[in-house]
């Protein structure tokens, strides 16, 4: 154990380097995936059959073929038709397109799940289509889509573990080095724990976003209230004071 710890200490720079690549891929992949999800999700609701059909083809293609196949498509195939890119870019694009296609279904479904009365009310108030989307529909759909987006975000983080296939030095590859320096249980124990902590941090962040989104719809407490330390049983005067304001 002592020997393991000193080996871990020696391996810290490598593990940190791998962790950095994993985090970079997760963050950039998530940003790209979100942009693609919103764009494809909105296009899939278009009234024009051609636009809707095209969005559906893209969504079904990236949902229906495997993430690994897409990764190899960007890493091996595109250079053969003259589009070379560094492995990290190929990784981000593959993750972004794959999870973006899944996200597009979430965006589309959440917008469709906003009650019809809200659409009718905004028409009755003669809001412009853009205004209606921006002020009425999107804020409600956003609160609905966060839990599913959180699931996808965790999936994306876990999906980054395959980028070793395209020569990237991510956390999983770093663990293999650590395994050789220490032993299997120690190295992968540390690794699984690191991934778990990352996933947990992402979940906490998304939960905070959900609390905020719901508060802005007038449901539930504000993020500041949710995060503040409180005595478990609020004193009467304080509680009533808050309810009154």
């Amino acid at each position: 154990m002592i020997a393991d710890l000193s080996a871990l200490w020696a391996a810290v720079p490598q593990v940190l380097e791998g962790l950095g690549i994993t985090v970079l891929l997760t963050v950039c992949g998530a940003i790209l995936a979100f942009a693609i999800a919103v764009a494809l999700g909105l296009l899939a609701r278009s009234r024009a059959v051609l636009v809707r059909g095209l969005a559906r083809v893209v969504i079904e293609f990236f949902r229906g073929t495997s993430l690994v196949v897409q990764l190899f498509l960007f890493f091996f195939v595109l250079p053969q038709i003259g589009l070379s890119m560094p492995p990290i870019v190929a990784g981000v694009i593959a993750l972004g397109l794959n999870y973006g296609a899944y996200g597009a279904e979430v965006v589309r479904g959440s917008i469709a799940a906003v009650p019809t009365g809200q659409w009718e009310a905004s028409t009755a108030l003669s809001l412009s289509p853009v205004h209606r989307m921006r002020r009425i529909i999107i804020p409600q759909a956003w609160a609905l889509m966060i839990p599913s987006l959180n699931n996808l975000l965790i999936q994306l983080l876990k999906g980054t573990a395959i980028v070793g296939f395209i020569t990237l030095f991510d956390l999983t590859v770093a663990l293999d080095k650590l395994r050789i320096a220490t032993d299997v249980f120690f190295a992968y124990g540390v690794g699984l724990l690191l991934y778990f902590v990352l996933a947990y941090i992402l979940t906490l962040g998304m939960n905070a976003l959900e609390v905020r989104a719901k508060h802005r719809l007038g449901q539930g407490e504000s993020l500041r209230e949710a995060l503040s330390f409180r005595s478990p049983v609020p004193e009467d005067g304080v509680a009533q004071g808050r309810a009154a304001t």
Partner: protein
Amino acid sequence: MSGLSWNWQHVWDSLPSLLEGFFTVTLVVTVVSSIIAAVLGLVFAILRRSAPAPIAAAVTFVVNFIRMTPIVVQLLFVYFTLVALDPLTIGIIVFGVHYATYMAEVYRAGIDSVPRGQWEATTALSMSRGRAWRAVIIPQAVRATLPALGNYVISMFKDTPFLIAITIPEMVSNALDYGGDHFRYTEVIVLAGVIFLLASYPTSLLIRRLEQRIAFTT
């Protein structure tokens, strides 16, 4: 190299080895692991609901831990730990257990959706707890969960190339081998993608229909 060219010869030459990987690994893992996941997931869900609190808490933690860590790392971990087992068996076990944790969540939602009155009725009929689960709760809970379980089977199917990490010659790794041998990846990678699409898209359409039928009849 030859720009945007497409050579059908590579498609025909590589097809046998891709199909071999598909039928001997991809399909085998998907089917066997799905069965393991479906059964084990139900066990997890029931344990979380009716086992004594400490056991239920432990199961919940294990399920969340497995669910929130990458299957590739789990594959490597088991691969280097159980060196006596052959990689395919390890792949089947890890996929089965990993997806069981997803399916446990689905079952939990299904079990929660069974109306309280059903539980009360089993008490009124003085059924044993085991009989209540088997004869009343599970049949109703599982029915509602079938589409979600089916979607997880499809997503497991598309995750099978992760088995490359533990050196299993499945379809995509055969495609890479062919590409490496012939310095030509375009056709084989696209072919692998098309095979995935041809298998998964019709299945997902079937599941969507099943979803509508179940929504219609309940």
